[in-house]
């Protein structure tokens, strides 16, 4: 039984913003579903940073890039998403658990956050899923929707 807390990887947010991306509509459907079902999302601050950086790389439009940040903040104000700061207390968690995962630092931050917050990690990254499975609950948005019988 899945709890009502999720961690979402940058690939899902970014996918929603690419109209022609193969998983774009599924990403948006997934976000719609978690909204309807009242899931709470917890992500390390690294995640919106990656989304913004990547979005800017494709658009070269800082105003629109700032607009993405604004919507993350708005979502946070709606109290349905929390940002986990990468500071001292997170560092303690990271220190305690990073050895569980054979990943690069950014991936490890995402995985340790999900592990510590006891959330299901949602990502399109099959390699990340492969490394995290058996350690934390992890799945793609598509698998999530299937589990929710959508």
């Amino acid at each position, binding site marked *: 039984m899945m709890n009502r807390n999720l961690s979402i990887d*940058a690939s899902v947010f970014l*996918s929603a913003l690419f109209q022609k991306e193969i998983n774009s509509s599924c990403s*948006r459907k997934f976000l719609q579903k978690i*909204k309807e079902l009242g899931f709470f999302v917890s992500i390390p601050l690294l995640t919106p940073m990656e989304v913004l950086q*990547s*979005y800017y790389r494709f658009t070269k439009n800082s105003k629109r890039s700032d607009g993405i940040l604004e919507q993350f903040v708005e979502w946070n104000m709606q109290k349905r998403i929390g940002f986990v700061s990468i500071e001292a207390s997170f560092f303690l968690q990271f220190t305690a658990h990073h050895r569980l995962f054979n990943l690069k630092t*950014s991936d490890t931050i995402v995985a340790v956050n999900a592990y510590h917050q006891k959330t299901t990690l949602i990502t399109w*990254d099959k390699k990340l899923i492969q490394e995290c499975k058996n350690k934390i609950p992890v799945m793609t948005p598509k698998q999530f929707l299937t589990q929710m019988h959508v």
Partner: protein
Amino acid sequence: MFAALNTLKISDLRKHTDAVLDEVEESGGVFVVFSRSTPKAVLMSYKHFKQLEPEPEDINLEPLKTPRGIDFFINPPEEFLIKKRGVDVVKEIRRLRGYDE
């Protein structure tokens, strides 16, 4: 007749309040009330005043068109959508994270 050139004296207003008010109402004009040779106030009929009030604003305001928060990501506004084809967002994120693929 207390009003002259659309002005009223405060002394007339004090002494003949009802008559002055009747005159203001009947004329439908706007009168400047003077006290010690200085304009101090403006007097007008209630009817005239009502005509000056702005129309009440339409309270049926249109809902905000731009989706906010999670709704923004569910339904990104057209101008925020990236329409480039063939992008693999997983590869893009992995590239940012330093994977050499």
